[in-house]
C-alpha cells in the first residue's frame, strides 16, 4: 500500500488489513478429532473460524491473530497452538 501524505485514507473496509500477520501462534485444527460442537467459532473474537461442508471448522489465517481462545475452549482438545515460523 503506497503511503499518503499525513497518513490520510479514503473510507474502506477493515477486511483489507490482513491482521493474520500479527500472529505468533497459529491454531492447527484436527477435523478427525472434532465433535462439531462449534464452540471454537462461537468464542473466536475475530469471527474468523468457518464451518466446512462436513460440519467441522477451519480458521481463516488471513485474519486469525493467534489469540488461542479456540484451542483453550475446545472440549475435544482438537486444536493445537503451534509457533509461527517467521
Amino acid at each position, binding site marked *: *500500500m503506497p*503511503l499518503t*501524505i*499525513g*497518513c*490520510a*485514507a*479514503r*473510507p474502506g473496509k477493515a477486511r483489507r488489513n490482513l491482521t493474520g500477520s500479527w500472529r505468533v501462534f497459529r491454531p492447527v485444527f484436527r477435523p478427525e478429532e472434532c465433535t462439531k460442537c462449534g464452540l471454537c467459532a462461537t468464542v473466536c473474537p475475530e469471527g474468523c473460524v468457518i464451518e466446512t461442508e462436513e460440519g467441522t471448522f477451519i480458521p481463516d489465517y488471513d485474519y486469525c491473530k493467534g489469540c488461542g481462545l479456540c484451542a483453550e475452549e475446545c472440549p475435544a482438545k482438537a486444536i493445537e497452538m503451534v509457533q509461527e515460523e517467521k
Partner: protein
Amino acid sequence: MLKITEGSYAVAEAVKLCRPQVIAAYPITPQTHIVEALAEMVANCEIDGEYITVESEFSALSACLGASAAGSRAYSATTSQGLALMFEVCFNMAGLRLPMVMTIANRALGAPLSIWNDHQDTISLRDSGWFQLYAEDNQEATDLHFIAYKVSEDHNVLLPGMVCFDGFILSHTYEPVDMPVQEEVDGYLPPFTPYHRLDAGDPISMGMYATPEYYMEFRYQIQQAMEQAGKTLVAAGKEFSEHFGRDYGSLVEGYRLDGADTALIAMGSVCGTIKDAVDEMRDAGRKVGLLKLRAFRPFPEREIVAALNNVNTVAVLDKNISLGNSGAAGTEVKAALAGSGITVLDYVIGLGGRDVRKRDIARVVDLAEKGEGDMFYGLRTEVL
C-alpha cells in the same frame, strides 16, 4: 507604511493581513497583546474569520488542527507553559502534515516560575516537526509571518511553522515597522489551498494507524518535508524581497564576517545587541563578526559551514540549556563544524530574562579567544 507600534500589535496586524479563517488561542504573558488585538479585530469584522475562545492551550491548538484539516487558514499564539501544554498536538499536527502558523513570544519554562525571556520553550519542541524561525526585531517578526504561511501551505512542504520572537524584549517594545497593505500581501500570499480536506461529501480519514511496517516511512517523509522546507523558505524569502524590498533569502544572516577570526552565533533579539557590540569591537580593531540563525528547524547546517569557512573560533550563545548536555545551538553547530578545525565554544546566556549587554558580548569574545567556554555565562557566584 512605516509606523511606530508595539511588537505584539505588529504581529497581530501581520496576522490580520494573512487573512486567517480560524484563530484559537488562550492568553498567556507575554503573548497576550497579540491575541487581545486579534480578538478585537474579529469582533470589529476587520478579520473575516472565527475566533474560538478555549479553556486551555491544548484545546487552542486542537481547534487549529481541526480547522486546518477542514481547509481553513489557522492561527494561534502562545509561549512557555502554554506551548508545553500543546506538546502532544504539536507532534500530531506535523505528522498529519497540516499547515498553520503559530507565534511564540519566547519565555522561560518553569519551575521556578518566570515570565521573562529565553528560548527554552521553543527549543524544547525542536523535534516536533514544526519549522522554527527566530526574529531579531519587530520588522522581521512581522515579515516572517507572511513567509511562514507561504512555506507552511506549500504542497511540497505541508508542515506547521513557529515564528519565534523574544517575549517582552520584542513583544512589548515599540519600534518602527514597515507594515504592508492588504493588496501587497494578497499579491504575495495566495489563499490556502488544502492538500487534503475533511469534507463530509468526500470523506477521508487523517492520521490513520501505522503499524511497524509503515510508521518509520511516515517519519522519513516528514524529515524530507523539513529538508524541502529549508529550500522553500529560501525561495519564499527571495520572493518576499522582490515584493517588499526586505531580503530573507537565507536561513542565516552574516554580519561583518569578512576577515573575522571569531564569529558569534545567536538567534533572536540578542543579535541586535551583538551587531552593536561587533561594531564597537571592529572599531577597536578586533576581527569579530556575527552569524545569525534565522531558522533553527530546519537546521541550516550547509549555510553555517559555508559562512564560517575562514574563522578560527566560534562562540555560540544559547538562550536555552538541554539539561544534562549543553545549549542546543552549541551542540548542533559543533556537529556541523566537526572536523573543520574550528574551535566551537558554547555559552548558555540570558536565561529567564537575564539581560545580555554589549559588554557581555565583548566578554564572551574575550573568553572564546582564550579558549574558555562550554559554560553558563554570567552566573552570580555570590548567590550560589
